[in-house]
């Protein structure tokens, strides 16, 4: 759970941003700039935008969960509310033609999200823990339910839609094309991510951690645990609202789903999958999850099965989330022993991966066998066509799976060994002992 700060402060670089902190940002921004040239199709852009939005939302969520230790089951509310407000503003801009340039819309969302957070937070942040969690759940359900009732604001089941292009053009951009929207979104992504990162470095941000660990002690250091929570909550609400604004710009429609429990739940899953302990964790989580949801679901009807399995396995074996897996390698890297891991990884992780694919294939072929239309015996996996009604493919898949897992199992000992050594300054005795 150690925060990335501990790694930063080691460099004792008080004042002045060290290259260590600036570099990642520059690199990420650069990547964002070139991505559209790598993935040019509109759908790729759509999905990347969706990712960006989710990232902002997940980061905002982690301000609560990771840094404030507040577990919320209703955070969709703040994103959704922000989004709905933006939709309405978008429409006003259209009808009253108010001169509000589209790129500023997310600010509106942010402010509205923060407004909501201020109201709800005023009573929900009194305590963390179960009470907070359950209040957030209740509020979430209430708002979601009222969204189908209060048609005037939420537009009922159809939701509220608008048209981003009717606002006044900015430097000649009307945001007709996806690419324009992409750069708008990416810009906001970098900006809000940076702001959230800096927030975690401010006194409030630091105290959020303290309050998370031991609210009472914080009181005796001059800080009111409640106010600290409240501030992080509002900040989080703001960025959630920004995400909502971006959503409004991208999809030009908001509906009940932007508020409901499913959305609130998945952002929790996303954040955790990425890793709550590290600032960049949620980013990874958002990317992976979006891919699973929008791309994997094109490949297989069983995608939810795999998602479920992914979560179960992640928490069981990598409680630090994907980011945790990455950070695990920092120590070996510092000791310059990352190289020693390559071979064992190759010998263990590779077969394991194949084994897992094999397992998945097994599910697929079984699913096809059970549910495919009569006579449609042929299916294709990884580009290979075969009939699910002939024994051969079954034998092959089962065989491959078992063999791979066996190999992985056999080599895992060696991996553990090397892993141990890679984490200590040397002296095999210590390494072997873990």
């Amino acid at each position, binding site marked *: 759970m150690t925060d990335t700060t501990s790694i930063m*402060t080691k460099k004792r670089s008080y004042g002045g941003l060290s290259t260590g902190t600036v570099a990642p940002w520059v690199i990420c921004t650069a990547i964002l700039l070139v991505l559209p040239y790598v993935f040019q199709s509109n759908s790729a852009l759509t999905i990347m935008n969706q990712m960006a939005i989710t990232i902002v939302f997940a980061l905002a969520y982690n301000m609560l969960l990771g840094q404030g230790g507040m577990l919320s089951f209703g955070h969709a509310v703040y994103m959704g509310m922000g989004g709905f407000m933006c939709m309405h503003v978008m429409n006003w801009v259209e009808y009253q033609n108010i001169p509000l340039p589209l790129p500023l819309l997310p600010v509106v969302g942010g402010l509205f999200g923060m407004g909501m957070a201020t109201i709800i937070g005023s009573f929900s942040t009194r305590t963390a823990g179960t009470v907070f969690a359950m209040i957030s759940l209740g509020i979430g359900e209430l708002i979601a339910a009222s969204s189908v009732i209060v048609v005037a604001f939420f537009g009922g089941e159809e939701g509220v839609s608008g048209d981003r292009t009717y606002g006044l053009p900015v430097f000649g951009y009307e945001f007709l094309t996806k690419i324009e929207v992409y750069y708008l979104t990416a810009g906001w992504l970098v900006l809000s991510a940076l702001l959230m990162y800096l927030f975690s470095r401010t*006194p409030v941000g630091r105290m959020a951690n303290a309050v998370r660990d031991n609210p009472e002690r914080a009181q005796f250091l*001059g800080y009111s645990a409640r106010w600290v929570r409240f501030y992080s909550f509002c900040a989080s609400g703001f960025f959630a609202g920004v995400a909502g604004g971006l959503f409004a710009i991208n999809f030009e429609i908001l509906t009940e789903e932007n508020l409901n429990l499913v959305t609130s739940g998945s952002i929790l899953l996303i954040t955790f999958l990425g890793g709550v302990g590290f600032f960049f964790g949620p980013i990874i989580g958002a990317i992976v999850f979006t891919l699973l949801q929008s791309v994997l679901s094109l490949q297989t009807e069983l995608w939810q099965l795999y998602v479920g399995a992914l979560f179960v396995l992640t928490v069981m074996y990598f409680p630090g989330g994907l980011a945790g897996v990455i950070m695990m390698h920092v120590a070996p890297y510092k000791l310059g022993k990352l190289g020693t891991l390559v071979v064992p990884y190759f010998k263990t992780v590779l077969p394991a991966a194949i084994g897992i694919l094999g397992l998945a294939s097994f599910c697929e072929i079984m699913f096809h066998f059970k549910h495919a239309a009569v006579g449609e015996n042929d299916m294709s996996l990884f580009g290979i066509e075969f009939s699910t009604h002939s024994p051969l493919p079954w034998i092959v898949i089962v065989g491959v799976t078992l063999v791979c897992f066996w190999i992985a199992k056999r080599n895992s000992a060696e991996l553990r060994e090397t892993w141990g050594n890679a984490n200590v300054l040397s002296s095999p005795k210590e390494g072997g002992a873990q």
Partner: protein
Amino acid sequence: MTAALELEGLRKSFGKTEIIRGVDLSIGKGERHAIIGPNGAGKSTLFNLITGRFPQTSGHVRLHGHDLAGKAPFEINRMGLSRSFQITNIFPKMTVFENVRCSLLWSMGYKYSFWNMVSKSRALNEGAEEILEQINLTSRRDLPAGVLSYAEQRALEIGITIAGGADVIMLDEPTAGMSNTETDYIVGLIEKVTEGKTLIMVEHDMGVVFGLCDRISVLVYGEIVATGEPEAVRADQAVQEAYLGAALEAEH
């Protein structure tokens, strides 16, 4: 001059049992004052009342003449009073360094600001490093505080308390669980950092008490049975029976 801390007819009951039964006590500025007494006498409770952890049932607590009635712990702390806990109370998941740095934030005037970067303030970080030096935990700087050994955690507890540089410092059994040698070191440290400040401590180690403090109050069953110079208290018959018993011989 007004006393640094003044207790007047202070009472506290939990349910029907009255734990603090009317304590009157006045501690002057710059005084080092020890509160001793049998287990369960109410020393920690007294601390909790003063620091606003519990509301008192009746009576007054005054810090530099200001009544603390109804003030929350954080408000009292901002008025320049800082305390440590008998049962270690730190931020287990944060690094030792972070623990100390957080305890400096308010006193250095950062308050709830979200426009300052903690990592940028030289004063803040060097201040924290300094404290670490003083409590001999520099070597454990980046470990999560939760994994320190018991005595190390006690040291950190004290570090967090004195870091803020409050002018009234209350320590609840600072040397508990420390070996004699550690004890000597910590006592020295306390002596140093509380120079010119007001110190109120609860301690069962008579050596420490008599070595460090200007005045001593003996609390027995929620009442102060004696207050005065160490020698006077030591001589006091009532105290002998109620508390010290054969201890003195044991210690000296």
